[in-house]
C-alpha cells in the first residue's frame, strides 16, 4: 500500500496527506481486530444461575496437583503448568503441536462468590469450578405491601 510511486502526485503535500490517510486507516484496522493477538489460555466457558457461577476450562494433560485455583472477591484466578513431552536422547520429533508451559488467567465474575464454598473437579482434562454466590449478594425479593 505504501509502494505507489511518488511521482504520481503533484505536490509533496498531497503525498503527506496520503500518508496521513494510510496511517489513519492502519490504526482503524487495528482497532477493528485486524491484528490478531494470541487468545488467552485456558479458554473458559462460564455458566450462571441465581445461585452462582460454574467456570469450565479445557486443560488436557495437567497434573491436578499443578493446578492452582484461587478466588478473591469476584475474581477467579487459574494457574498451573504443563510439562512438555519428555523425548529420550536420540528420539526424533515429527510433530509438536501441543502447547506447554505456565499459564495464569484471572476471570472477573459477575458477582462476589463465597470463597469457602468453591469446589473444583478435574475430569478427562476438563476443569470445572463451581462458585456459589455470596449469600448476602443474592437478589432478594421484596414483597409489596398493600398500603
Amino acid at each position: 500500500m505504501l509502494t505507489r510511486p511518488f511521482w504520481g502526485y503533484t505536490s509533496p503535500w498531497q503525498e503527506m496527506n496520503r500518508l496521513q490517510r494510510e496511517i489513519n486507516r492502519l490504526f482503524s484496522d487495528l482497532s477493528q481486530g485486524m491484528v490478531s493477538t494470541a487468545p488467552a489460555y485456558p479458554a473458559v466457558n462460564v455458566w450462571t444461575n441465581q445461585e452462582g457461577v460454574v467456570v469450565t476450562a479445557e486443560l488436557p494433560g495437567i497434573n491436578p496437583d499443578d493446578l492452582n485455583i484461587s478466588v478473591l472477591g469476584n475474581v477467579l484466578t487459574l494457574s498451573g503448568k504443563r510439562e512438555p513431552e519428555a523425548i529420550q536422547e536420540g528420539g526424533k520429533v515429527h510433530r509438536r503441536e501441543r502447547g506447554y508451559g505456565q499459564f495464569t488467567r484471572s476471570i472477573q465474575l459477575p458477582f462476589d462468590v463465597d470463597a469457602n464454598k468453591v469446589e473444583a473437579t478435574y475430569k478427562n482434562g476438563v476443569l470445572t469450578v463451581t462458585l456459589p454466590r455470596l449469600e448476602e449478594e443474592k437478589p432478594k425479593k421484596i414483597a409489596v405491601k398493600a398500603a
Partner: protein
Amino acid sequence: MAMNAEMQAQQATKQEATESGVEQTRDRRVFVPRVDIYESGDDLIVVADMPGVDENNVDITLEQDRLTIVGRVDPVAPNGYTLAYAEYAEGDYRRTFTLSNEIDRDHIEATMSNGVLRLRLPKAAPAKARKIAVKAA
C-alpha cells in the same frame, strides 16, 4: 495476563475439522486434536489432546497405513445453569495420519489419561530377506 511465550505461541483456538470426506452421523462439531508425534527407540509415539474424552469413548483404527483416532465428547453442561459466556466449543475429535513405517499392529498400545491419548506403535522388524531355493525340475 502472564503467560509463557511457548504456551502463547502454540495455543490458538481449537481447530475445527473442515473436510474429512466422511459424513457425520452425529450433530456435533468435530475438531482436530493437537498432536505430538515422535520416535522413541523402536516405537512411534502419538500423543493427542482430547479434553472431555474418556477411555471408553475413543476409537483407534489402523487400516493399511492410515491411523485414525476418534474421540467422542460427553458435553459438560452443569445442571440448572445457563451458558453466559463461551470461549470454546465442545465437540468430538477426529484425525487421520498416514504412517510411513510399517507398524506391528498387533502390539499397539493406547492409554488415555486427563484428556490426553497416548499411543505406542511399535515398528515391525524389517522384513527378512528370504532365500528361495531353486529346485531342479
